[in-house]
């Protein structure tokens, strides 16, 4: 049984349409991340799922019931907010029990629940404090605690980690992931942080301009982006997408960039055949372009001029100019590449993607 089903959902604010027909089916126990740039509608979608906004058209089902007309409190959900939204006038304990208080849960059950959640999140010592006396990380835990204590069918997270500093964010990420594994709950998690999405999600819904662009497991989203948007959005730095001409050389498929560079592509998928002789977008991840020749199995070569070199320690990012197109490459930190230097790079084309220039969809 699906935990959450969203069908043909539209949401309009006045004349602007924020959600333009969303369809999602999320299975029980799944950790779904809604990922997208700001303004893509991901937070609105979450609010509609929570019942904080009413959809213009379309249905939302949680479990097996349509919840369109059910107020948030009766949807069997819990939510964690970006600002944590801890009630400033209440202690941590009260913050956590407020929902139960609203539902009239007996005191004793409330206390037990608090104890359970507090030890789970290691906030036992903070229960009598006010939110203003907590650090950012502690507030985050309390906000989680408030959600956990409900033991809902569906958890909704609205960019919960974006107010934390980098170190803490990594820790919390791990914790949330562990938590998910332990309580095996269903989670819908909104973020604009790709690392969070990649590390935590069982499936990512990449959103842009009110539509789900791709809904798939992280590796698929990463390796087989459904369209140019996803390709250019995901990854730091994202996939290189350059205009190329498809040609055949025997049974081999070639991509020609600016006439000068010829890259051999691994196989010749049926889908690519109609595009032979036409211009397409060729997508290559930066890590597939290296300065070491030979040691990659199926490697094509190309010559490029180094424009910028950015060592980060573990690796060095290089901006190349290849036949008039700019491409990024991820090279070994010991590669000594001077600015302006022309050099030959090898390209692993096994994971290269082709996109239709008009529909921008993935061809192969």
């Amino acid at each position, binding site marked *: 049984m699906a935990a959450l089903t969203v069908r043909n959902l539209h949401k309009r604010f006045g004349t602007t349409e924020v959600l333009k027909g969303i369809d999602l089916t999320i299975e029980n126990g799944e950790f779904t991340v809604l990922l997208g740039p700001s303004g893509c509608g991901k937070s609105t979608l979450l*609010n509609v799922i*929570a*019942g*904080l906004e009413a959809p213009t058209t379309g249905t939302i089902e949680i479990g097996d019931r349509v919840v369109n007309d059910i*107020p*948030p*409190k*009766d949807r069997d*959900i*819990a*939510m964690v*907010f*970006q*600002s*944590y*939204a801890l*009630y*400033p*006038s*209440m202690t941590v304990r009260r913050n956590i029990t*407020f*929902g139960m208080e*609203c*539902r009239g849960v007996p005191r004793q059950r409330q206390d037990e629940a608090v104890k359970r959640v507090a030890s789970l999140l290691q906030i036992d010592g903070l229960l009598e404090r006010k939110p203003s006396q907590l650090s950012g990380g502690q507030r985050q835990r309390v906000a989680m605690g*408030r959600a956990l204590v409900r033991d809902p069918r569906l958890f*909704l997270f*609205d960019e919960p980690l974006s107010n934390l500093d980098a170190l803490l964010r990594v820790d919390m990420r791990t914790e949330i992931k562990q938590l998910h594994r332990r309580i095996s709950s269903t989670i819908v998690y909104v973020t604009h942080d790709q690392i969070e999405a990649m590390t935590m999600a069982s499936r990512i819904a990449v959103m842009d301009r009110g539509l789900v662009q791709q809904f798939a497991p992280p590796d698929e989203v990463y390796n087989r982006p459904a369209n140019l948007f996803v390709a250019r959005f995901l990854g730091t730095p994202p996939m290189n997408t350059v205009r190329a001409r498809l040609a055949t050389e025997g049974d081999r498929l070639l991509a020609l960039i600016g006439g000068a560079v010829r890259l051999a592509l691994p196989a010749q998928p049926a889908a690519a055949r109609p595009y032979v002789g036409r211009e397409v977008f060729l997508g290559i991840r930066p890590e597939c372009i290296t300065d070491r020749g030979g040691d990659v199995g199926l490697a094509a070569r190309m010559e490029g001029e180094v424009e910028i070199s950015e060592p980060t320690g573990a690796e060095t990012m290089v901006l190349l100019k290849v036949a008039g197109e700019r491409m990024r490459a991820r090279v070994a930190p010991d590669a000594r590449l001077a600015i302006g230097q022309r050099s030959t790079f090898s390209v692993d084309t096994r994971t290269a993607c082709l996109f239709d220039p008009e529909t921008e969809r993935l061809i192969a």
Partner: protein
Amino acid sequence: MASTLRASRWLIYAVLIGTALFMLMPLLVVVLNSFRTAVEIGRSSVIGWPTGFAWENYISAWGHYCIAQRCEGIKPYMWNSFALVIPATIISTLLGAIAGYSISLWRFRGDTTMYAIVVMGVFLPEQMKLIPWALVLRELGLNDTITALVLIHTVQGISFTTLFCRNYYVGIPQDLIKAAKVDGAGYFRIFWRIVMPLSPPILIVTVIWQFTGIWNDFLMGVTFTAGSQQPVTAALIAIATTAPTDVPQYGVQSAAVLLAALPTLLVYFLGGRYFLRGLTAGAVK
């Protein structure tokens, strides 16, 4: 460098204290006069050090001075004012808080129009409303009662309290309200448990504002109450007005003014610290 710094520091203090003295002047005059006799004031000026402490001005103003043929001073009128100010302040503040909360945090169809109309009420001149109120009170059968004044000040006060509370509540993060909704809290529970505990700064401002405004109202008080029911401003005016056939009583008048102003001054002195904080939140939006 250090010396110019010190000089400018002195200058700042001089300006601030100079202004403070200007601000205090009327109060000082009233305080001093309240200890002087009418004869004394007539001989010199209203500005002057009392030659002796004429406490009788206070005793007279509080309990003996004849106002409207009742020689009980302003005391009974003070109680009338309290009986009117306290309910009117509380009710109008509460209703304004609820209205401001709804307008700012719930949104509903027509809320901006409604809000604009309500705020217009802040700007209506009082004189304009006198006769309409008389007609309304007739329909309600409330003429000559303190209830009538409570009603008038509550209805009129909602304009102001709604304005300030809305402006303040707009600053409350929407996420808090969402969180509470997910937690299962309804309209009133969110108001009482989440919004109210955040409200003291603005409530202090509205309470101070309403309290002083209603306490100092004269026009409505005199017109819609009678005799022993009148608020203290009516008594003050009675002491202060000089008909062609009367003699001004500066000393008693000063004492009465001070006594009648004590509640509002106290409210200001006690609440002043918070007043500043809430004021901008309420007024600037």
